[in-house]
């Protein structure tokens, strides 16, 4: 033992001299056991620490800990030295080692937690912090420590549990209440949070942090007047507190007291003139108050303080722009573009300034609103029905003229095509049936006339119903004119077809006369009636088609197929009398067939088919017209979108 006493003495004196090597030499002597050596190193480390030689103290503690980490008193002392010398990771390791031996040691867990937290290992820190508080639930400090760690890690619900524990141990501690309140607010338990924050203020009326916290919560829960009462008290106590003044300013804005808000932020800026955020706040406030000059000046100060923040400059630009100072706005805009050349919004803003500047260059823009001398025009009466009809007639007339221009706009033949189509059609049918089949027409002597009487009503129906189909989709631009309605464009197309096909029919008849096939209808009223009836049928279906095509873009294709089928079912190149009775009984459901036979019978007096039912066609036409017009009127508002 005296040996060890000697060794210790010589080692300690060597250590005092700062001679760690000599010290080691003494302690490394073979006749010292590991335990004694470790103990001696510990002693030495402690002595070194007390003498302020921290590096060497750490060095010795490391040696001791390496020698006998499992010994409680050694680990404890080493941990203490590590911790005090700022070697938190090693301290944490040492405490962990100790806790293997004494797992129920609450203070040890608390130390370990502190060391882990200082070393930045928060998961471990939280684990040990909670363990410490759980082992010794009556320690205020342990509970508060664990809660703060949990709160910092964003684990609000668990933090609340430990803050509650701390608050139960010391209900008068404002700091705990404040923290608990913040955690509860993060959990969206606003009511409780505010109540606790207010209690914290009551407990410690002069505590600045409690007041700031309570004010902030009250503002967030829109209890502005209570917030104002607290923050005003706080400002009265802490006269030099610029954070409180900034909060007061925000409170006053929310209460709609802009002037007082401005006064508060001005005081804050006097106390902390270098804070950019305060200047920005003040500038926004001035802008809101309409004091553009001062706002611009304040934004300028903020921009000078923090030249790297483009948002400040952007705000400055807006203010300059709104106060008409385009030159300054342009200067700021130039800097913006230089610092953030790829920001589209900035570029847009600068472009706007440039445009305005252009307008100002000449300066002879006339102010137009000064027209006090002008007497307002006389008001016009609401249009009567007659006037409205007159306008509509005018519109339809204009549309008809326009339609005739565009009807065949795509083909070079233009209107010639309207004439050529039925001529070719009749010629083809005549050639096929007359030459190839060497037959005679079922009625009359001339193939031309017979096919003519079939083609004309059929074409009138197909042209009318098909061309009206595109009335809405093809006239979207015209429908933007307020006076032009969907009814007008559809109706105009129908009328164009009636006019065109009637004209074509007359010209063809004249042509037949010219080549010596002179046939005139013997019953003009019947002819007109059949034409009107089939046109009305076409119109009714045309309205329905136009509406359907506005909703279903390929309806026109379906309609084209239907009309092609009708071509074979309408008795154009035959008379229904040639068909077996059962076929004819089906065919007579087709109203076009009646139209063709009606038309035909007005040409050939001897042709008076017993299946011809004129009233059937008339009724079907009337019903379709009513349905088509009703359909259009019902869906009028949904037929097209504004361009």
């Amino acid at each position, binding site marked *: 033992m005296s040996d060890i006493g000697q060794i210790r003495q010589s080692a300690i004196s060597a250590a005092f001299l700062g001679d760690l090597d000599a010290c080691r030499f003494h302690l490394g002597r073979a006749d010292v056991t590991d335990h004694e050596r470790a103990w001696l190193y510990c002693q030495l480390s402690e002595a070194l620490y007390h003498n302020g030689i921290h590096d060497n103290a750490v060095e010795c503690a490391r040696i001791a800990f390496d020698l006998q980490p499992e010994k409680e008193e050694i680990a404890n002392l080493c941990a203490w030295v590590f911790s005090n010398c700022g070697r938190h990771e090693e301290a944490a390791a040492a405490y962990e080692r100790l806790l293997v031996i004494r797992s129920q040691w609450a203070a040890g867990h608390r130390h370990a937690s502190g060391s882990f937290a200082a070393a930045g290992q928060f998961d471990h820190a939280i684990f040990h912090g909670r363990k410490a508080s759980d082992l010794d639930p009556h320690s205020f400090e342990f509970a508060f420590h664990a809660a703060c760690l949990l709160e910092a890690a964003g684990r609000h619900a668990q933090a609340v549990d430990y803050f509650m524990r701390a608050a139960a141990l010391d209900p008068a501690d404002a700091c705990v209440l404040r923290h608990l309140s913040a955690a509860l607010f993060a959990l969206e338990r606003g009511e409780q949070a505010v109540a606790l924050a207010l209690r914290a203020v009551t407990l410690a009326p002069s505590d600045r942090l409690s007041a700031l916290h309570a004010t902030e919560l009250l503002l967030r829960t829109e209890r502005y007047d209570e917030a104002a009462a607290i923050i005003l008290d706080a400002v009265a106590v802490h006269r030099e507190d610029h954070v409180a003044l900034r909060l007061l300013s925000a409170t006053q804005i929310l209460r709609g007291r802009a002037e007082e808000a401005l006064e508060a932020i001005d005081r804050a800026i006097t106390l902390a003139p270098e804070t950019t955020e305060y200047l920005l706040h003040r500038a*926004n406030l001035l*802008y*809101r108050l*309409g004091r553009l000059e001062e706002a611009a000046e304040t934004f300028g100060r903020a921009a000078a303080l923090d030249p790297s923040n483009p948002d400040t400059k952007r705000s400055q630009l807006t203010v300059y722009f*709104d106060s008409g100072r385009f030159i300054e706005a342009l200067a700021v805009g130039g800097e913006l573009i230089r610092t953030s050349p790829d920001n589209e919004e900035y570029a847009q803003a600068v472009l706007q300034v440039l*445009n*305005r500047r*252009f*307008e100002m260059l*000449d300066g*002879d*823009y*006339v*102010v*137009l*609103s000064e*027209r006090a001398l*002008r*007497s*307002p*025009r006389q*008001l*016009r*009466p*609401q249009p009567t029905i007659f006037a409205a009809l007159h*306008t509509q007639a*005018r*519109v339809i*007339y*204009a*549309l008809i*003229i*326009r339609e005739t*221009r*565009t009807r065949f*706009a795509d083909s070079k033949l233009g209107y010639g095509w309207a004439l050529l189509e039925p001529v070719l059609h009749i010629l083809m049918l005549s050639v096929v049936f007359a030459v190839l089949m060497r037959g005679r027409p079922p009625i009359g002597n001339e193939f031309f006339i017979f096919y003519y009487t079939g083609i004309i009503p059929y074409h009138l129906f197909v042209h009318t119903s098909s061309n009206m189909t595109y009335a809405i989709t093809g*006239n979207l*631009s*015209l*429908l*933007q*004119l*307020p*006076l*032009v309605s969907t009814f007008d464009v559809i109706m105009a197309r129908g009328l164009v077809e009636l006019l065109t096909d009637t004209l074509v029919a007359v010209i063809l008849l004249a042509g037949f006369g010219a080549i010596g096939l002179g046939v005139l209808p013997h019953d003009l009223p019947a002819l007109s009636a059949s034409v009107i009836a089939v046109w009305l049928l076409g119109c009714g279906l045309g309205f329905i088609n136009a509406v359907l095509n506005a909703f279903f873009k390929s309806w026109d294709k379906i309609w084209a197929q239907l009309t092609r089928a009708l071509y074979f079912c309408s008795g154009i190149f035959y008379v229904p009398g040639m068909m077996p009775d059962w076929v004819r009984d089906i065919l007579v459901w087709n109203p076009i067939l009646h139209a063709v036979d009606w038309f035909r019978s007005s040409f050939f007096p001897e042709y008076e088919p017993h299946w011809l039912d004129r009233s059937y066609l008339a009724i079907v036409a009337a019903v379709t017209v009513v349905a088509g017009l009703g359909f259009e009127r019902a869906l*009028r*508002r949904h037929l097209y979108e*504004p*361009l």
Partner: protein
Amino acid sequence: MITLDRVSKVYRTRSGRKTVLDNVNVTLESGHNFGILGVNGAGKSTLIRLLAGSEMPDRGAVRRYSRVSFPLGFGGTFHGALSGRENVTFVARVYGAEVRAVTEYVEGFAELGEYFHMPVNTYSAGMRARLAFATCLAIDFDVYLIDEVTEVGDQRFRRKCAEAFRERTLRSDIILVTHNVHTLRQYCDRGAILDNGELTLFDDIGMALGRYHRMVQESL
């Protein structure tokens, strides 16, 4: 004078239904030029089309005691396959105006040159706007509805338009939608703010602008 009598209008957009007007009762008096303010997407263009009659309200009635122009804006009212001249003729006929006088005025004002006789499809956006502008001026409307087109064309043409409008405002009113504060102050003496289905009238454009600025600031 245009009266909105319990007018409601809801618009369907990709993001859902948007109320432009919600049971609005206002009268835009004649003898005043109105500037319409509202954030993007508030429905200013729809309002202009309702005033014009290009669009019908969902409920209520828009009564016009004046001859109101078609909305002068970016949307086309011209048929692409027809020439400028034919289009102008059409508009003149629709409004019952003297066709010859209108086309001559437009030809002189719009400065389209040979393009006046070519299909509108071949026009640039600026040329289309010039044609629309000139057509609108050529017809004697009581109220002109303008939706953001005062920025059209080069500076000289803009000045020409302003000049023409100055002369026109001696007789007619203007209802103007623009983001350009300067233009609003120049042309309008009264203002209206369209916000969330409400249309608020102001007797002074300055008041309207001030209120609007505060509104925009608060929403930021």
